[in-house]
């Protein structure tokens, strides 16, 4: 049995003079919620488009449910549901008709699933309403209902919370977590709302300028995110000298307000505070802190201001 739903091997995509993906080796474990993080133009959508068969790689291969040959990949895509960039809908049709089109397209027997999917995404009362009269949030829900048709084993969602109100975002998150927990659906989700991703993803992939910088689990991220001591003293420049000379590290960051983020020696807070105190510094604040996903991501893609 294949442990991974998706694996890419040295996957590259080049457009005229532009490398959109550069030798990406990504792997998504079965049953995981994989948060795919990157700035606009980082290569997220390009990779998703290749996986879903909308674009073709310049180099490298993809392995979907263990299939890598062209025909086998096409078959494997039957097990995938996706929303790519925005939900693709026939606006002149009703919600039910949109689902019906996709039901027939995927060869799903029985019309029961149409109603079931509408219910699952909270659109049970809107089945006969034309999609052109839908709000953006309703369109997102309908897009998700279409993606869920045929009970896919792998969901690929590119910015699924776009246009949703705060309650809609929460509902979407809960729905995705439930699908993952109860049905074991593996989910690849790209989103700009990193705080949202942080609340549901079990794995992360950080992509920047077409290169996959890092893949890590939520636990690993949590560990890495709790890696600094927040220090506020009366004389920051003296404190930096003390940290460098007495503690022998330059792995810290001086913020604009004069506070210091110390990224090493976090396992020795006593030694740090004692060194600062011995130098005659008045310690106003001293506490271990955790970064959030956003600041970790910013640091990881080069917004690192360590001195």
């Amino acid at each position: 049995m294949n442990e991974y739903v998706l694996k890419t091997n040295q996957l590259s995509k080049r457009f005229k003079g532009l490398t959109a993906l550069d030798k990406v080796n990504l792997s998504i474990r079965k049953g995981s919620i994989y948060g795919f993080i990157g700035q606009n133009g980082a290569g997220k959508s390009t990779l998703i488009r290749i996986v879903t068969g909308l674009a073709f790689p310049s180099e490298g291969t993809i392995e979907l449910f263990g299939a890598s040959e062209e025909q086998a990949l096409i078959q494997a895509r039957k097990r995938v549901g996706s929303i790519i960039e925005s939900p693709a809908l026939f606006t002149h049709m009703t919600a039910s008709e949109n689902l019906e089109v996709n039901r027939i397209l995927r060869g799903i027997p029985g019309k029961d699933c149409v109603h079931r999917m509408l219910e699952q995404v909270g659109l049970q009362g809107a089945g006969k309403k034309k999609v052109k009269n839908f709000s953006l949030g309703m369109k997102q829900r309908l897009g998700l209902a279409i993606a869920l048709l045929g009970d896919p084993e792998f969901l690929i969602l590119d910015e699924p919370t776009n246009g949703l109100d705060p309650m809609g975002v929460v509902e979407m998150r809960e729905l995705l977590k439930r699908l993952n927990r109860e049905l074991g659906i593996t989910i690849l989700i790209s989103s700009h709302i990193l705080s949202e991703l942080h609340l549901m993803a079990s794995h992360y992939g950080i992509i920047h300028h077409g290169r996959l910088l890092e893949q890590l689990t939520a636990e690993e991220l949590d560990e890495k995110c709790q890696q600094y001591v927040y220090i506020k003293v009366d004389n920051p420049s003296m404190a930096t000298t003390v940290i460098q000379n007495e503690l022998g590290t330059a792995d810290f960051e001086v913020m604009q307000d004069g506070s210091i983020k110390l990224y090493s020696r976090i396992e020795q807070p006593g030694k740090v505070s004692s060194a600062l105190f011995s130098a005659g510094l008045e310690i106003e604040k001293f506490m271990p802190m955790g970064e959030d996903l956003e600041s970790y991501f910013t640091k990881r893609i080069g917004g690192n201001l360590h001195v």
Partner: protein
Amino acid sequence: MYNLLRVEFFKLRKNRSFWSLLFALSVLSLAYPLLYYFDHRSSGVPQITGAEFLTTFISSNSYIIKFGVAILAGIFISNEYSTGVMKTIASSGNTRGRLFTAKLIVFSVGSMAISLVFPIVSTVEVTLLSGFGQLPVESTVLFIPRAFGLTLLYTAGYAAIGALFTVILVDSGKTIGFSMIFFLMIDTIMASLSSKVAFFATLYDFSIFKLVGNIGKPLIDSGDVPALLLVPLLTFVIAGTLGMLVFRRKEIK
């Protein structure tokens, strides 16, 4: 493949632009013979019969075929790129070849429906007003099924060319505009080239663009029949195959 055809027929059935086009053509097809009817009535000229109308105006139907194919190509196929629906379709786990084939078949059927509106509606109307009359003496009883059959066959040929344009141009506006200009200009261009280069003369003589004019001929020599049948079939196959090849390598945005 059966499911893909069902989907395309479902979409065609739900396509309001398609029905609007059929309705508009029906209205025009009803109005056009009335102009002749009232004109002849006021001037005392004998009325045109259904048979005369059909033999005289079926050649004009080629314009409706061309415009119909161009418009339907834009609203039925190209529009799916702009709405993003093509992404869902292409990632549904079906081969691009099958997807294109299903689209081409249903698009051709839709175009065929459009192509028959004018000859059927107008001829029936004229027949009701002035009687059917007599077909030209040189034509056989097979004239009507032959004319309608060839109309369908040539429409399919044009539809395959239109479908090829949709996968190249993607945008519905561009597809409609380019197809219309292409279908209207190709005769002039081919005729002009034919007068200079013999190869183009042969090419034009055996193209649907020229042979479509023979649909309404009362009498067709038996020697001309194979070309009249094979050319639209080959056009359908060649343009369809080209369209499929382009679509297979097309990156869908």
